[in-house]
């Protein structure tokens, strides 16, 4: 009889530690039983404590097993009770340290994992017998499915089920449930139950004949419970390439009919390493050359490196019929969506395949029959949206920043190679509107980093800069494996702040694509630009409150001058990107014909509506003003049936861009003059600046980075022995951050008498 339902409160990490300590106690007691035998045996056992020691070891062993099972049950119950668990802080993996409060169903096995596995094995055997019999025993299948649904949280039982069925027979059962033809396999009745093997001879009594397919309702129940079972098997780390090498109904080693897994993947969460393996093989099996989407066999490799040296497992999709590749497409979309919903995996996986995703998406957007299945291209866009989304950013900051950098870099390189408005050339394939809208959502998530990069005083990531000139490297750095914890594209910084070191032109490439989507996304993007500029201004005012003091001090510049300069840079960045996008779209409309030209013209008109609303003498003020009404009106105006962009439209856009321009190279100019202020302090003393902080306390900035608290030790010292700032690329992350804060500090800004101003 199962016991009563039980309310359990568990800290998963501490409970796992407890189970490990129990295993250590078992080992210790075992060793002592042996020691006691050595000591007291030769003496004729004057006393014999070994029975107590062995009993203690047995108790520790049983307790460890029962606790491990309880943790698994609680985690499964917790996961089944609601949405995926809130991810822990960066650095913790998965469910570590999570506090679970769940009410567990009565455990029929009283904590005995082996008994649960044995029961699972019996259920698995019953399932195979009922499904593979010449006439399927539907009542038995329903009963097994019902029993498995009840045990959906019991990883031990589910493990027993999958182990008993085995990969080949599971593939055969799934073929019958999913109604796949042409399997070329046979079912043999043996003493060990039904077994499968390759078919020989004629097709009499073919096991995959439609007559043996399972009815839809039963098949649906069965795939759901088998999905949950396989997910548990995957989470226990046993769904490896080696296991999949026999996952085919013919029982031939080395081939995996992965496509059959499609309907199972949505049932429960599979382990990230299984998903990574399936996802990598999925991309390896895609053929994106030329202008046709095709598939071929891929290779399944364990991401953990387990089983290296073993014969490769080929991902063959599935034997037999898959008209139109619909099954493969559904499977591919299921894998991609499952990966996208794993925030610890999505960014790194998408980063590894970003070029293929973009190439495939461009192919999908062509107005030709290219064969890209819509479920797959939708899943690509979903994966991109999650890989740079808020969840991935929180769980895997470095991976998400790297993904954004790589995504922007790939878009930038593609544009650089395929479009040149100066030579009136555009051979690019546009991205689908859906993916452009996803870019806009991502840029909203990364708005702070985007505009901080545009107004950054320091050059962007060295790893992406072409050492021979001003441009970017031609291809993504080879050492950019995302496994590098220091952050691959910037060898210096890690963490979410990395996003600010993505070069502005890379961000601009993404922003341009997002603006080209037109419609309501442009509204959000303008709001972001205005919001970031306003936030910067607010921060600038707060950090320099009360600097005028008694009015007697006179400074060469306002301590807020840098903020204004950076604000201008942000606005100019946005408007320049807007103009460039409009120019590109105008060229596109001119070169293209028909529907694409119409859409391009519409987007230009929307951008022009934004541009017209900006008053040249108050760029920032009008940016705030247009965040809502104007764009919507603009969209309505722009929804004209046809026509090329009018010269007036293009002129309006150009006028705004000119108004917003900042002096090129203003960052270097500012740093040079700030350094001069510091180095010439003996001749021209730096006038100290008093400010009042939020608590009303006065603080004096002298311009000396040590006295002002920017350099606190050797870790953040950015000065060389001669007190000159080191070259930025040689600074440590801490020193770099201190240097930036010092450059923007009130005394340095206010004493800087050569702050570059906007042209005109």
């Amino acid at each position: 009889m199962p016991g009563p339902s039980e309310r359990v409160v568990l800290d998963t990490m501490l409970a796992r530690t407890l189970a490990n300590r129990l295993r250590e106690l078992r080992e210790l007691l075992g060793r002592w039983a042996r020691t006691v035998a050595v000591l007291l045996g030769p003496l004729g056992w004057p006393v014999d404590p070994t029975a107590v020691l062995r009993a203690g070891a047995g108790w520790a062993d049983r307790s460890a097993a029962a606790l491990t099972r309880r943790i698994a049950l609680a985690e499964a119950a917790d996961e089944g009770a609601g949405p995926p668990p809130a991810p822990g802080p960066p650095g913790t993996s998965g469910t570590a340290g999570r506090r679970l409060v769940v009410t567990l169903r009565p455990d029929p096995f009283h904590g005995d994992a082996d008994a649960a596995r044995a029961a699972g094995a019996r259920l698995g055997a019953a399932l195979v017998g009922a499904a593979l019999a010449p006439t399927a025993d539907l009542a038995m299948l329903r009963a097994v499915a019902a029993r498995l649904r009840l045990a959906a949280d019991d990883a031990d039982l589910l493990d027993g089920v999958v182990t008993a069925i085995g990969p080949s027979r599971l593939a055969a059962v799934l073929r019958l449930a999913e109604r796949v033809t042409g399997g070329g396999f046979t079912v043999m009745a043996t003493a060990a139950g039904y077994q499968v093997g390759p078919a020989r001879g004629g097709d009499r009594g073919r096991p995959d004949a439609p007559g043996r397919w399972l009815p839809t309702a039963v098949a649906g129940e069965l795939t759901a419970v088998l999905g949950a079972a396989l997910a548990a098997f995957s989470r226990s780390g046993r769904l490896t390439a080696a296991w999949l090498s026999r996952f085919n109904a013919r029982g031939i080693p080395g081939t995996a009919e992965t496509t059959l897994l499609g309907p199972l993947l949505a049932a429960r969460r599979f382990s990230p390493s299984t998903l990574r393996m399936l996802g990598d093989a999925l991309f390896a099996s895609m053929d994106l050359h030329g202008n046709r989407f095709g598939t071929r066999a891929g290779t399944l490799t364990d991401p953990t490196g387990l089983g290296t040296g073993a014969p490769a497992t080929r991902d063959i999709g599935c034997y037999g019929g898959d008209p139109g590749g619909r099954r493969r497409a559904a499977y591919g979309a299921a894998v991609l969506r499952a990966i996208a919903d794993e925030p610890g995996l999505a960014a790194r996986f998408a980063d590894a395949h970003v070029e293929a995703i973009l190439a495939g998406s461009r192919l999908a957007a062509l107005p030709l029959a290219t064969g890209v299945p819509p479920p797959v291209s939708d899943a690509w866009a979903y994966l991109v949206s999650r890989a740079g989304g808020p969840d991935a950013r929180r769980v895997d900051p470095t991976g998400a920043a790297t993904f954004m950098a790589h995504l922007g870099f790939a878009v930038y390189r593609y544009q650089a190679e395929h479009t040149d408005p100066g030579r009136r050339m555009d051979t690019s394939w546009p991205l689908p509107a859906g993916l452009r809208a996803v870019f806009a959502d991502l840029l909203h998530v990364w708005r702070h980093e985007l505009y901080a990069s545009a107004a950054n005083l320091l050059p962007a990531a060295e790893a992406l800069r072409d050492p021979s000139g001003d441009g970017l490297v031609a291809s993504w750095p080879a050492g950019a494996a995302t496994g590098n914890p220091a952050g691959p594209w910037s060898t210096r910084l890690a963490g979410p702040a990395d996003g600010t070191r993505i070069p502005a032109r890379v961000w601009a490439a993404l922003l341009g694509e997002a603006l080209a989507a037109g419609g309501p996304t442009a509204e959000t993007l303008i709001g972001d630009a205005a919001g970031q500029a306003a936030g910067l201004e607010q921060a600038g005012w707060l950090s320099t409150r009360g600097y005028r003091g008694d009015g007697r001090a006179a400074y060469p510049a306002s301590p807020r001058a840098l903020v204004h300069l950076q604000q201008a840079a942000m606005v100019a960045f946005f408007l320049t990107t807007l103009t460039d996008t409009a120019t590109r779209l105008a060229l596109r409309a001119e070169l293209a014909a028909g529907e694409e030209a119409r859409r391009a013209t519409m987007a230009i008109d929307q951008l022009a509506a934004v541009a017209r609303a900006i008053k040249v003498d108050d760029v920032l003020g009008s940016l705030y003003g247009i965040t809502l009404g104007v764009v919507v009106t603009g969209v309505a105006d722009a929804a004209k049936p046809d026509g090329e962009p009018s010269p007036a439209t293009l002129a309006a856009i150009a006028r705004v861009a000119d108004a917003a321009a900042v002096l090129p190279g203003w960052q270097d100019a500012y740093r040079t003059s700030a350094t001069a202020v510091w180095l010439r302090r003996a001749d021209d003393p730096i006038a100290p600046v008093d400010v009042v902080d939020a608590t009303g306390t006065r603080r004096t900035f002298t311009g000396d980075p040590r006295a002002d608290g920017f350099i606190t030790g050797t870790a953040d010292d950015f000065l060389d022995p001669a007190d000159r700032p080191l070259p930025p690329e040689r600074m440590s992350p801490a020193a770099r951050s201190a240097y930036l804060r010092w450059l923007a500090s009130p005394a340095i800004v206010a004493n800087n008498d050569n702050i570059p101003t906007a042209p005109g």
Partner: protein
Amino acid sequence: MTGTGPGVDAGDAARDPAAGLVVNQRRVMLLAAAATLERGADEVAAAVRPLTAALEAGAWAGPAADAWARELAQVWAGLSRAFGDAAVDCADTARAQPEWVAPDDPRAVRPSALPGFPRDGR
């Protein structure tokens, strides 16, 4: 080499020159066993302490956890009693033995190890 520790070979056992007696090896081994068993009690206590600490830190709470904590306390008590009793019994038995025995006394020779076990050590 002279000495009375368990690591001393029977052939090297110290002789009492006055009476022509030799060290009672059985007594020596009983005393050594008592000392080792006391160390065992300490080692097991050190291994059990983190278990109660983890429970108190909130690893697992609820009625089942309370029941298990009681089991743990019982097992621990049983183990420390087993080690303690065995150590005391060994020491008592040793004390009942003479310190010196005649060279032809069986206790003058160290008993051989159990089949399959090394002599001395763990």
